[in-house]
């Protein structure tokens, strides 16, 4: 009983610590201007940490992510637009640093690939359905000649029995 209690206290304390540290990182970047704060938050959630590969700089604890956050903060405070900050980062770290790569020849597969695949799948479905339609209709319809032959065969059959 007391052991369970201990665990729950420990759990609560850990949660408390986690929320404290999360608050601390946000408080490290004080803003007077709310629109600038919004811009900053948007940017750090859109820029990718080059060191950690699949985390935003807001998400990452890497030293470089901190440096880039500092740089973003500094630029936003100085009145840089979102585009300017992203441009600054892309100039240094390449398109990799932004989670929305630009449309260019090297990223065509990325942007249009899914649509191309959907198109191929759609065409395949249409072709399959059409062919099925063809085979069923051809068995239903008989030519006049065939009908005559069928009648003849049926008559023969009748006369036998």
């Amino acid at each position, binding site marked *: 009983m007391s052991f369970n209690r201990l665990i729950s206290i420990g759990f609560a304390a850990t949660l408390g610590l986690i929320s404290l540290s999360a608050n601390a990182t946000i408080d490290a970047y004080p803003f007077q201007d709310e629109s600038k704060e919004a811009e900053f938050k948007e940017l750090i959630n859109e820029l990718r940490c*080059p*060191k950690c590969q699949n985390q935003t700089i807001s998400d990452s604890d890497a030293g470089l992510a901190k*440096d880039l956050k500092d740089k973003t903060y500094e630029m936003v405070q100085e009145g840089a637009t979102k585009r300017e900050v992203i441009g600054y980062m892309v100039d240094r770290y*390449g398109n990799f640093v932004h989670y929305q790569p630009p449309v260019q020849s090297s990223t065509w597969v990325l942007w249009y690939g899914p649509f191309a695949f959907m198109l*191929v799948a759609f065409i395949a479905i249409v072709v399959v359905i059409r062919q099925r339609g063809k085979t069923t209709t051809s068995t239903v319809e008989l030519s006049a000649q065939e009908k005559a032959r069928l009648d003849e065969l049926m008559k023969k059959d009748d006369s036998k029995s």
Partner: protein
Amino acid sequence: MNKRLILLVPLACFLFVGAFFYTALFSDPRELESALVGKPVPEFELPDLLNPSRQLTKQSFGEGHYLINVWATWCPTCRAEHEYLNKLAKLGVKIVGINYKDEPAKARVWLEQLGDPYVLNVQDYKGDLAIDLGVYGAPETYVVDTNGIIVYRHVGDVNERVWRDKLAEKYREAGEVNEL
């Protein structure tokens, strides 16, 4: 005949996707294309590690082609490559160092103990120059040609294999630019 060809479509799709993943399998995800290749070494003004009262700019690197090596005492791989850098320096390769987000005192002790392969060292305490270079870790090595243009970037340690397979040729070519 036509139907037979349609049966090959899934195979073609499979081969395409297969080729895509196969090439991705053997690429190193840490090796990002450098945005700085083809551009000049960024401007800066930072203190000299060994003589902090002296300010360095990119003009301090002097004429000719050279390597820029980003290093720090907190970086174990930098220690691993250091001996090979000493060797390259002895062979006459010009290396300038950027001491990246490091304690200057520790860095000076490191050079005293392990040898100093650098013609000079920029003390980039805050990492400003590193951001301008697009550095995302240490060690990184850049090849700069005689016109001051970055022609190649290598992420990770420099060792005999890397030098032989990648850097040596780039370094030699970087020195030839002016002669053309």
